[in-house]
């Protein structure tokens, strides 16, 4: 049976059209595939970069935070402690950077072809899972090297990853949608990412934060993600129940509002970009 499509001005809060998104799942896959494939073309190290980045970060952080600043890691080898944070952080920072640039980088698609626009920034975030997977293998290698035995909590790790994806998508969608109209985002983003890094417990534990600043500190959606990575991968982390719930709620708000805001703004994309 033929389907019927009605085109008319949409209301301010449009439905999510999840069915539409499902129909275009193959495009989603192809866009990720394209970006992964093109990313390391004409580089010497190729996918080796996915190994170099976290490992070098780990070495530098260990030297600065652990050896120079003397931050402890509560009995866990510091290298493992910080690498678990680096994995989550790299996925997040690369995800939001890529997604905020993705719409402008795909201007030709947006002005010439129809498909659910959500696919572009989402694919930009999710393609980071490839590098993330490589990083995870390295982490496993270091676990073995330090003969560190993760606890039963590791079965919860997929949930922590889902959380990390939701946080990256939420923030990424906000930046992507606003960035089409206001090119300030491209200027502000590297700076914002850098600032966020310092208020994310990658090189130190969030247990160090004074109680009166705690709520503010946990507003950063990545705080909960990094601590939950640590908890599931290493069995030990600073993750009080009330802050855990608070952090999940913050993340959900950012995620859901990010999607709705994106849908609200997307109808202007082709005219404004």
């Amino acid at each position, binding site marked *: 049976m033929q389907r019927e499509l009605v085109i008319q001005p949409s209301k301010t809060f449009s439905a999510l059209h999840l069915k539409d998104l499902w129909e275009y799942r*193959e495009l989603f896959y*192809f866009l990720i595939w*394209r970006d992964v494939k093109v990313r390391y073309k004409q580089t010497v190290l190729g996918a080796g970069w996915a190994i170099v980045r976290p490992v070098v970060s780990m070495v530098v952080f260990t030297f600065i935070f652990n050896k120079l600043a003397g931050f402890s890691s509560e009995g866990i080898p510091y290298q493992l402690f910080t690498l678990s944070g680096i994995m989550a952080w790299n996925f997040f920072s690369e995800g939001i950077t890529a997604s905020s640039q993705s719409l402008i980088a795909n201007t030709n698609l947006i002005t010439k072809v*129809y498909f659910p626009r959500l696919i572009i920034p989402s694919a930009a975030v999710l393609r980071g899972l490839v590098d993330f997977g490589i990083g995870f293998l390295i982490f496993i290698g270091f676990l073995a090297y330090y003969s560190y035995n993760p606890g039963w909590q590791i079965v919860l790790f997929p949930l922590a990853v889902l959380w990390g994806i939701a946080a990256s998508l939420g923030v990424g969608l906000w930046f992507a949608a606003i960035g089409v*109209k*206001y090119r300030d985002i491209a200027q502000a983003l590297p700076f914002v990412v850098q600032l966020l890094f310092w208020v994310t417990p990658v090189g130190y534990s969030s247990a160090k934060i004074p109680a009166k600043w705690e709520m503010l500190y946990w507003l950063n959606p990545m705080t909960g993600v990094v601590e939950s990575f640590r908890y599931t991968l290493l069995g030990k982390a600073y993750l009080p129940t009330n802050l855990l719930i608070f952090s999940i709620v913050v993340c959900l708000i950012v995620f859901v509002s990010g999607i709705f805001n994106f849908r609200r703004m997307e109808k202007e994309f082709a*005219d404004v970009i």
Partner: protein
Amino acid sequence: MSEPVIVVENLSKQYLIGENIHGRGARTFRDIFDYKMRRIFSRKERQRKKEETTIWALKDVSFEVGEGEAVGIIGRNGAGKSTLLKILSRITEPMMGRAILRGRVASLLEVGTGFNLELTGRENIYLNGSILGMRKKEIDKRFDEIVQFAGIEKFLDTPAKRYSSGMYVRLAFAVAAHLEAEILMVDEVLAVGDIQFQRKCMGKMKEVGRSGRTILFVSHNMEAISQLCRKSMLLQSGELLEFSDTQSVTSRYLSSNIVSGLTFVNSDPIDERKIVYIKSAQIVHNGNDSDQTDLGISVNIKYDFLRDADSVRIGIIVKNSFGIILWRNGDADSERRFFGKRTKGSYDAFVEIPTHLLKNGIYYVTIFSDIPMKEWLFYREDVLCFEHHDNATEKVAFVDNPTGILRMDLHWRVNKVE
């Protein structure tokens, strides 16, 4: 009679243009801040709000297209053709009105959208196909057909950046041409590639038309529209002027074009930073005879030099109705002396179009001014247009045959040797 496949009711879209904060284009927070401040402190700015120019890219357009019909969409640049297709293919939203489409829609507003130069031909077929809305299974099924149509069998695994532009376009069109859809919308994509390939594309389009699919076809090329579409619509300034059989629409378009395309008056304010201000340009038929045959056509450009300057070029670009550039020529290209210093003041320039080289048809003229290799001073695309119709050519058979883009009267020397 079955239900119409496309129903459009009072479709409208308005754009705000000019230096306007709500208009198009990227802006920064600073622009908005600036604007708000000016609004607060200056009464003049507040009044200006009312005068802000809005244009109707599309205004109250209604029509119906039945199953299997091929409809041409004709109109000058900015008439709303592309806006109409963009709304119907859901790239942008209408402001008012609605449209109903019954069946799967494939729209082809550009050839090769989403091609990636780093990827191979094979990879690009899959990528481009999925961008256009094909399923992987469909692409698998038609893969060989696509490759064969494009004629790139040997280069399937070569990155697209090593392709010649012809191969690139062929491949891109091939993918799009194999979309399975009940409704096909095509925007001026046949104006690419060599003539032979254009013919192949036209053939493919006709085949699509014969197979009972509905086509909306935008083109500046009246010949292509006449071949493909029995019915056509004429848009002007966003309004639907006429929707009837192609013959009558094209002739109305052509006659309207010749009147409105003859003069161009620059309404932009003078920009002191630019060296040259183009005041006007117009098509002049040499001589006052109403019978214009063989009298020749010139372009007259009036401009001011805002200060003494050298190495400035003022010129024209001429395109045919396929959108193919026939030539670009500036005063300084033809005569070195124009490259030297020209003093501040008004100038009046004439350049004759070599009509003896032109086949019968519509031609578009772009006016430009630049400092070669350095800076564009002025560029206004297709602001003039003229129809060249040379009765003399009809006396000689084959002269206006469809091959080639120029008419050549070559001098042949033939000796019988045996």
